[in-house]
């Protein structure tokens, strides 16, 4: 059964409202930059919108959009249309140390991710940001589950080496003083 064309736009708008931010967060980990992430998600949403009326009601739009994003990111990477730049985001509000520190950490993590080979980065992001099972990641990337495991193992090791002590980041809801004490090994 196809989606009712009468409420296609409503459903699509609701989907973007509900799930857009999740895909944007995944995209920024893939691209390293918020504006490249916005580009990637919007380009992918345009493709999804055009396919929306044809999607079966049982189809999962998240999976569909994810596939579009991965394929689009891959084609951009190959064509060098979008040079992935590990960047820092300017602090929105520089009046508190917590916000500045958090944004600094964001920049460092995205930078470290951007240094990884594309496939390793994609596996880590899909596994630990999008929480996909290995089988689904393998299907998305066109490789075997064994290869996904290998990429995950190597990517985690490379990320740990790159971030050093910052890898063992304490939960973000932990008070700042105790986070610093934890990081300093107190």
């Amino acid at each position: 059964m196809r989606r009712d064309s009468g409420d296609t736009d409503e459903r699509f708008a609701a989907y973007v409202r509900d799930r857009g931010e999740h895909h944007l967060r995944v995209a920024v980990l893939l691209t390293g930059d918020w504006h490249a992430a916005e580009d990637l998600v919007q380009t992918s949403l345009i493709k999804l919108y055009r396919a929306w009326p044809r999607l079966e009601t049982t189809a999962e739009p998240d999976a569909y959009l994810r596939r579009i994003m991965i394929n689009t990111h891959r084609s951009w990477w190959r064509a060098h249309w979008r040079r992935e730049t590990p960047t820092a985001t300017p602090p929105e509000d520089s009046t508190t140390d917590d916000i500045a520190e958090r944004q600094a950490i964001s920049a460092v993590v995205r930078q470290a991710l951007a240094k990884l080979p594309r496939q390793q980065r994609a596996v880590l992001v899909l596994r630990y940001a999008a929480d996909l099972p290995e089988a689904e990641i393998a299907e998305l990337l066109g490789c075997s589950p064994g290869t996904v495991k290998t990429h995950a193992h190597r990517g985690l090791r490379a990320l740990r080496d790159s971030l050093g002590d910052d890898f063992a980041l304490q939960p973000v809801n932990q008070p700042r003083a105790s986070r610093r004490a934890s990081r300093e090994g107190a």
Partner: protein
Amino acid sequence: MNDTEDAVRRLFTVATQDIPPSINLGHDIRARSRARVLRARVLLSASLAAVVTAATVITLSAVSPPSALAQVTQAATRMAAQSYRVTSTRTLVRAPGAPTADKNPVTIIGEFDPARSIGEETVGGGAQIRYVGGYIYIPVFGAFRRTHPGLPQKWVKLHVPPRSSTTVTPGDVASLGGITGVQPFNPQDLLALLKSADHVREVGPASGPGWKGSAYSFTVTVRTSAQPHQVMGLHGTVDVDQQGRVRRLDAVESVENTVSKVQMTFGNFGIGVSVSAPPADETVSP
């Protein structure tokens, strides 16, 4: 779930919390999708038509305004042609092992006339640096004096090689907005940095005392070719007024695990700048 996976999930959570407010995913998705289809249909009709008149082509194609990148680089280029005053503040946000005291901001106030290759800046309300005719004059600093005991001179004279406005070095990023020990701050480096920027886009209006204009976000990435390979990133916004002049820059620079914030404001365009080299007997060249 093991500790490593737990740590990665936490890192990714933190790394994706700072979504810029300017991002609007749902904006115009449907209109842009329909516009793509419409353009495809129009092109198909034109190719099938026996005659396509020039008037039709003009009607169908839009005269594109300058791109955001062009706006920013044009503004930066204009800076090379007129004098101005600049205030720059550089703040160390985070660095491994840096105590809080080292994070105090450093402010530089300067006046420059690029066309005459002269300029002067005061660092932190104290040390003065002069630029004259391709040379930079820095007050003799402690390390230099220690290697040259008994030195009577007050100034060190260094040659500033002509810089390419298209080649960006890691030093350009590291020195933007303040003294870093890598090389002294030179606002002209801003031109090269902005020309090498990518992901430039207009993000909204901007204004300041006596001016209005637009804000543009940008990113710059420089990779060192020599070991240890480093990636230095600069990401921020640059405000350009309606006369096409750079008015403000707000950026965050990241180098490995070190993050700094840079804020620069430009004004008093056309100001008279008068700077002369220090007396030769007070100057030493290393």
